[in-house]
């Protein structure tokens, strides 16, 4: 089995889908000839030609507007937004159009697009190369939102997203493109090749959207996380020497409520971890869901460990980033609570 990091796994998913389905097209800023600023589309234009993989003007709203039109024609566009922080100019096309099209047309038209966007911080990118805007999209009816945490999942989920007949926001935590960063920024990053999730089949496979995975089984407390925070949470659980169960949500919408409820009912305690700002983040929804469905099983208040409610401050990146120390503190608190 080939070993792939997350960039290679994403590239492989795109390659597989371009090959299987000639309605799949890929475009975005610098994705064509150059192969993307993170190299996720490297080699694809050469292999599939300029009408399947191409560069675009710097106009995220135009990219999405055109993608929707292509989707209506019958293609499956996979546009890239260079950084998730730059998705806002496309917000109207996403929220008012892609998300609403099937509904408002009574099912006559739809836009089966997959928007890929690198997200998250921890790379000293400053406030406009570090954001995690997933919580804005999960509030929008009609969009699916996915965030993988490892190469194997990234490929399987991306293939499922492209095959999905609804618009999917596919966020790629750039901090773990090369290895499962666990928040210990002062230690060397371990490359993906040292981990089993880097064993990625060359060919086609899919992971259905809406199914969580248990990243680390446990009995004492449930940790809900996704993306980079899965690795931070696993590290924190190990370091706290608490038998925590870390659930990797993978898909935020649809959400695997059954997996969450089952785990929390078992453990009676819950910590939610995400990198996005706290207020109104997806952690709020998770907290609400857990207390709605597990109220009588909860033995302590649900804790949220998140980015602070500030922009991502460049020099204080590691104070902002919700690292293992903060997760550990929350774990201890719920164990006492």
């Amino acid at each position, binding site marked *: 089995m080939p070993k792939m990091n997350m960039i290679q796994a994403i590239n492989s998913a795109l390659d597989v889908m371009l090959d299987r389905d000639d309605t799949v097209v890929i475009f975005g800023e610098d994705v064509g000839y150059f192969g993307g600023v993170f190299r996720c589309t490297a080699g694809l234009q050469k292999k599939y030609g300029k009408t399947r993989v191409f560069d675009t*003007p710097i*106009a995220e709203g*135009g990219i999405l507007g*055109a993608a929707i*039109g292509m989707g209506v*024609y019958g293609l499956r566009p996979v546009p890239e937004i260079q950084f998730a922080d730059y998705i806002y100019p496309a917000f109207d*096309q996403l929220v008012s159009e892609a998300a609403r099209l099937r509904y408002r047309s*009574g099912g006559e038209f739809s836009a089966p697009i997959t928007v890929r966007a690198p997200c998250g911080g921890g790379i000293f990118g400053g406030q406009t190369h570090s954001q995690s805007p997933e919580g804005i999209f999960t509030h929008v009816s009609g969009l699916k939102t996915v965030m993988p945490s490892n190469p194997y999942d990234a490929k399987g989920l991306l293939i499922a997203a492209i095959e999905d007949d609804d618009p999917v926001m596919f966020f790629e935590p750039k901090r773990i493109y090369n290895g499962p960063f666990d928040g210990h920024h002062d230690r060397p990053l371990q490359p993906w090749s040292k981990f089993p999730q880097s064993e990625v089949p060359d060919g086609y496979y899919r992971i259905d959207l809406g199914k969580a995975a248990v990243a680390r089984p446990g009995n004492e407390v449930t940790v809900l996380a996704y993306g980079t925070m899965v690795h931070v949470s696993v590290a924190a659980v190990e370091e706290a020497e608490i038998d925590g169960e870390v659930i990797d949500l993978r898909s935020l919408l*649809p959400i695997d409520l059954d997996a969450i409820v089952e785990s929390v009912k078992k453990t009676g305690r819950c910590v939610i971890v995400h990198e996005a700002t706290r207020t109104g983040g997806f952690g709020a929804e998770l907290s609400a869901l857990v207390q709605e469905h597990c109220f009588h099983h909860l033995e302590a208040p649900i804790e949220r460990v998140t980015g602070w409610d500030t922009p991502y401050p460049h020099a204080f990146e590691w104070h902002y980033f919700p690292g293992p120390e903060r997760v550990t503190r929350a774990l201890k608190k719920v164990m006492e609570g």
Partner: protein
Amino acid sequence: MARKKPTSSADRPAPGPLRLHVPEPAARPGDDPDFSHVRVPAAGVSQRPPIDASEPELRAYAEGLVRVLGDDHRAVGDWDPQLDADTLRRGLRHMLLTRIFDDRMLRVQRQGKTSFYIKSTGEEAVSVAQAYALREDDMLFPSYRQQGLLVARGHSLVDMMCQIYNNTRDRLKGRQLPIMYSVREKHFFSISGNLGTQFPQAVGWAMASAMKGDTRIAASWVGEGTTAEADFHYALTFASVYQAPVILNVVNNQYAISSFQGFAGGEHATFAQRASGYGLPGIRVDGNDFLAVHAVTQWAAERARANHGPTLIELFTYRAAAHSTSDDPSAYRPEDEFARWPLGDPIERLKQHLIAIGEWSEARHEQLVKDLDDQVRADLKEAESYGTLSTPPASPSSMFEDVFKDMPEHLVRQRREMGY
């Protein structure tokens, strides 16, 4: 280099204070309508250029006004599309049908049978002539004021009425505001309430058609007010970069709700001129001249289909009715402006043309109006037999469908919570 000017503008004498320019229309309520700023060239003076002409060769068209129907109601000049009398009569019929439909639906809205309506009165030539100049399977991305496209493509009025009524036969399942049609089999895209979004979508559709070596082109419409939105710029940029086979139409009906076209930049350039900045041809056409609209659209369609790229057409017309049933134009413009509009009424002009060429008469016209009125009444009766706003389509539980192709668990739970 003998004389030395001051080295920095800071040394120059201080100029007077700056002033903000805020556009002001020529006439407000109480004023006499004033269209003296509208230059109306004679019909027939504009030459039809070859379809592969380059943008610089075409630049004059963005400032001109293509007109075919002269003051004597004859078709003149190079742009005359030379449509046969049957086609012209069909065009007259479809424009009239659109107007009668609009009048009737306004009335039912006033009766409270539906919540909202938007008329296209005065702009019927735009939709009908443009539909005629396109192929039946070219894809249309309209705004809310091109109901004439559906009429021209022979779509069932009953079906449109059922959408307006949100009744049991509403194909949009009660989800949309009246007139926000979507008619897939007529290649008529779902109308959005958000202005302008369809413009780059049409370009994307056209790009896809080109990618796939198809022969179908796309056309889209926005109002002149909407040109200020980002989507207008995205559409022109993408259309230019990829030379997409698309016709981008700006219907300049002089108003955006209460704002005259000066607030969209119309004081300083025509809307067709916007195109030249992107290296695209912009053509301004008398939007109330059925023949001119047809001819210009056909030119643009031929150009696009022959891989010579996109065209921006400015359809110069006048919004004769209120913006919508929520609007009262007497609050912001003189009441009798339409009567003084220098380009007249598109229906009247085509009618007079047909009479002038001996292919129509007042009597036949009167009969046609009556027939169409009867047809609309009959259709309305049928539509009402399927219910009105108070008779919603199907079960409320259907509101949870089509959010996604397959209903996810959380919507199943919510539907259950609602009692279904």
